[in-house]
């Protein structure tokens, strides 16, 4: 019988409230007054500018749905012959056992998202900003490249989590005024890896023992360096153990503007429960906030299928929920990622060929697209070779 938790999660999109409810409430409360004033629609440039403030999140949501549907609905692949090859002991999450390893993972994974979502050379261009730029530029249908960009942001993280070998962390001397430092390497499927640096102060917050209950709490504040960009970060590592139950509350967030309202955060969800139905689950939840508003939420977790390891990404955005299951493999000597999942209940499949400097997406209708692959070793990737073929 299928796992109840998974069944609930799979059906959640049919239950959770739609994004329009929030906007309706705002309108009714007069919190979207500028938009409401446009309702009589005499038009005018001033009114249109005001409306953008409220419409951008709506447009972003709607277009995000359109983007992913546009990319993936045509992808009803019937791909066969792929062989999963990642052994179970490659679960990177299993390596996260203490605060240091958690912060190393946070730096590597958030660094990968930040680097992939913007241009590493541009100071602090966050995923949130990159996303909203894509959306706001697209008054009509977004370009095909923009569609792939949405998906592409996650590929370096997927590669890192499905690559062989551990996430390497090495202690280095503190810098930028911080006492501690570490460099973290997130591997990729071509055998290389991207290097990120984290400089931080460690703050011991609390620790107490009450009977059988033990609590420890550490936090960090510091700076994440990805290429030429630097992001202020903070993190928390908190665990609690009571009898045979354990719970951790861990997060690592990198701020992407000066207000501290825009950031990318990764949180660990970890539950270990004893009893007859003992089970351990760990997943990492990535949240992208812009000006205090949650734009996107993505859950990364490993799954074991047929003795091999797969990565499950669940992406939630404005009422749309898609799940994509990735596994690595090889085709004609090339490293590939097979993606399989559902979007709004529709089955989708596609293949990503991983090549130096680019990802080659192949869809079921024969179309393909080449997109930049973030590579820390290449600081001048040629981004003029993107193309999209709908043939």
């Amino acid at each position, binding site marked *: *019988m299928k796992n*109840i*938790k998974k*069944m*609930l*999660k799979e*059906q*959640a999109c*049919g*239950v*959770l*409230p*739609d994004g329009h*409810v*929030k906007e*309706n*409430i*705002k309108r*009714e*409360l007069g*919190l979207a007054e500028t938009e409401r004033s446009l309702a009589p629609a005499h038009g005018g440039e001033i009114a249109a500018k005001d409306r953008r403030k409220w419409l951008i999140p709506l447009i972003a949501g709607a277009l995000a749905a359109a983007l992913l549907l546009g990319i993936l609905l045509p992808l009803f692949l019937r791909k066969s012959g792929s062989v999963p090859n990642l052994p179970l002991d490659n679960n990177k999450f299993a390596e996260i056992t203490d605060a240091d390893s958690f912060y190393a993972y946070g730096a590597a994974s958030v660094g990968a998202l930040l680097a992939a979502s913007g241009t590493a050379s541009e100071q602090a261009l966050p995923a949130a900003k990159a996303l909203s730029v894509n959306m706001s530029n697209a008054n009509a249908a977004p370009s095909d490249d923009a569609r792939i960009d949405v998906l592409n942001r996650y590929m370096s993280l997927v590669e890192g989590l499905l690559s062989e070998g551990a996430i390497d962390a090495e202690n280095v001397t503190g810098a930028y005024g911080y006492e501690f430092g570490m460099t973290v390497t997130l591997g990729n499927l071509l055998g290389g890896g991207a290097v990120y640096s984290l400089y931080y102060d460690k703050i011991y917050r609390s620790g107490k023992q009450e009977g059988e209950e033990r609590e420890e709490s550490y936090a960090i504040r510091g700076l994440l360096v990805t290429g030429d960009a630097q992001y202020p970060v903070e993190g928390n590592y908190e665990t*609690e153990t*009571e009898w045979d*139950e354990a*719970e951790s*509350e861990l997060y690592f967030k990198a701020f992407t503007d000066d207000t501290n309202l825009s950031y990318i955060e990764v949180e660990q*969800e970890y*539950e270990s*429960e004893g*009893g007859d*139905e003992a089970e351990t689950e760990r997943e990492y*939840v990535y949240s992208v906030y812009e*000006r*205090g*508003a*949650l734009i996107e*939420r993505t*859950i990364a977790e490993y799954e074991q299928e047929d003795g091999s390891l797969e990565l499950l990404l669940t992406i939630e955005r404005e009422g749309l929920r898609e799940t994509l299951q990735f596994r690595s493999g090889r085709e004609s000597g090339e490293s590939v990622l097979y993606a399989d999942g559902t979007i709004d209940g529709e089955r989708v499949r596609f293949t990503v060929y991983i090549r130096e400097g680019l990802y080659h997406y192949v869809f079921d209708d024969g179309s393909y697209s080449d997109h930049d692959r973030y590579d820390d070793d290449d600081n001048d990737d040629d981004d003029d070779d993107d193309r999209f073929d709908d043939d």
Partner: protein
Amino acid sequence: MKNDTLERKIQALQRGDGTAFDYIYEHTHKSAYFAILYIVRDKMYAEDLLQETFVKALRSLSQYAAGTNFTAWLCTIARSLALNHIKKYRREVVTDFDADAYKFGTGEAEIPYLFDLAARILPEDEYEILMLCQIAGYKRREVAEMLGIPIGTVTWKNNEALKKLKREIKKEDGA
């Protein structure tokens, strides 16, 4: 710490800072929504009632005792509105409403079977905890704070709810 932030945002909203709404909504709406859904079992009605709940609550924000538990206060309003909705339908429709409440929504708004099953077989507290932990994505610690109960109780009720669902499905599979 998160409750402190929520309280600050509520105070900001009371002062007229509309930007605080997003935070308040994101951190409380799922709890209120599932309180409603448990009662009405219809997505469309639950969404309407969620909207009504927020509008009513935020328009009477002065009645909220600062520093208590905003989410619990919101859920009280939500339940009250949902029960009023049910009463209204009881008056208007002569049928076995208890057994088929979810059918009074539109066909498109029916909730998936597993969620309907959960609403039918679980007590309200277990249902709410299950939804908040498994669907809304809250940590057990956050759920404990929201509901004002110990984290151990959240864990226990969450596990109980899962076991009951599993048992029920097994029973139905075997039937």
